[in-house]
């Protein structure tokens, strides 16, 4: 945004929505191109996850065996009690916490508060990494109990296939997000967005908009988990 400080900022006039979509030169006026592209990617990712969840529901309602009770399968023994969905609940809260720290990181980024932004990014990355760790623990537990993509001891054999596919795909997104977060954290702390240091891959100058774009991806990962939590674990 520094380049805008000395020049008059041309705020696009409020046009009708159809006029802007049909405009020559540029749609989404005033929206940074990186952000628009990230949104378009996220829309396509929404489709992928939706198809997973729709096929899961279709399979669930058509198997002849009973669907395993997620509440029991994902329960954990604490002392003498079997607490239902304990690990999943913790994972949910951790992901929401990380979403909060990410949102604040974006805010401090735009305020050019380099330190706060960096620390919050780091916190987000650490929360994300712990989420992946817990997911690995959950996979290990289920695999040791005999859950396979083609079979499981609890009921409908499709359960394993759906579980590994959906949580695996989501976990991959989280893992990529964590790597992305660590890279961006380093860039923030080094002051890349203040000094206009050129990126390693792109050779382009960047600014704190990059943090918001990173944030969009991270919030999306949380968003997908909301749907997985509702449909796969609670339903």
């Amino acid at each position, binding site marked *: 945004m520094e380049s805008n400080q000395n020049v008059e900022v041309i705020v696009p006039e409020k046009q009708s929505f159809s006029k802007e979509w049909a405009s020559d030169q540029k749609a989404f006026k005033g*929206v940074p191109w990186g952000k628009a592209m990230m949104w378009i990617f996220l829309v396509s990712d929404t489709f992928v996850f939706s198809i997973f969840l729709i096929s899961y529901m279709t399979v669930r309602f058509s198997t002849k065996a009973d669907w395993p009770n997620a509440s029991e399968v994902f329960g954990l023994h604490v002392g003498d009690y079997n607490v239902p969905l304990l690990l999943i609940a913790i994972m949910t809260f951790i992901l929401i916490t990380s979403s909060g720290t990410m949102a604040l990181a974006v805010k401090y980024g735009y305020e050019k508060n380099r330190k706060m932004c960096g620390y919050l990014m780091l916190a987000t990355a650490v929360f994300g990494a712990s989420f992946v760790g817990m997911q690995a623990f959950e996979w290990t537990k289920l695999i040791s109990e005999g859950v396979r993509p083609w079979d499981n001891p609890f009921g409908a054999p499709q359960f394993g296939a759906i579980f590994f596919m959906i949580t695996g795909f989501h976990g991959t997104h989280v893992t990529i997000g964590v790597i992305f977060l660590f890279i961006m954290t380093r860039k923030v702390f080094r002051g890349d967005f203040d000094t206009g240091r050129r990126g390693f891959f792109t050779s382009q100058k960047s600014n704190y908009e990059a943090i918001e774009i990173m944030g969009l991806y991270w919030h999306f990962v949380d*968003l997908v988990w909301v749907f997985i939590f509702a449909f796969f674990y609670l339903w």
Partner: protein
Amino acid sequence: MAEGTQQHPLKIYFQVWTLLFVVSALSYWVDWYGFQSYTRWGLILIFMLLKAGFICAIFMHMWWERLPIIAAILMPCFAILVFVFIMWHESYWTLIIRKIYFAVTGS
């Protein structure tokens, strides 16, 4: 403030953050309390949509975006709802086949 940047008071982030925690706790409580059938599904869906809405609107700043980009993001998602509707509609056939299967096999 230049168009395209998103600066909002700290308060709203903390409010939404708290709200997300509360709603998550509520949806966990649905399982804990052991609601079944339509009550369960209804509550799960309400809490899910609340959480998704707040994350999208506030954390992802969609509330403050321009209508053309909001429309470009949300309108394709309508196709997903159509797909869900088709699958729901067709599920009667699945149900009939299941019932026939159980009747024939006697299980």
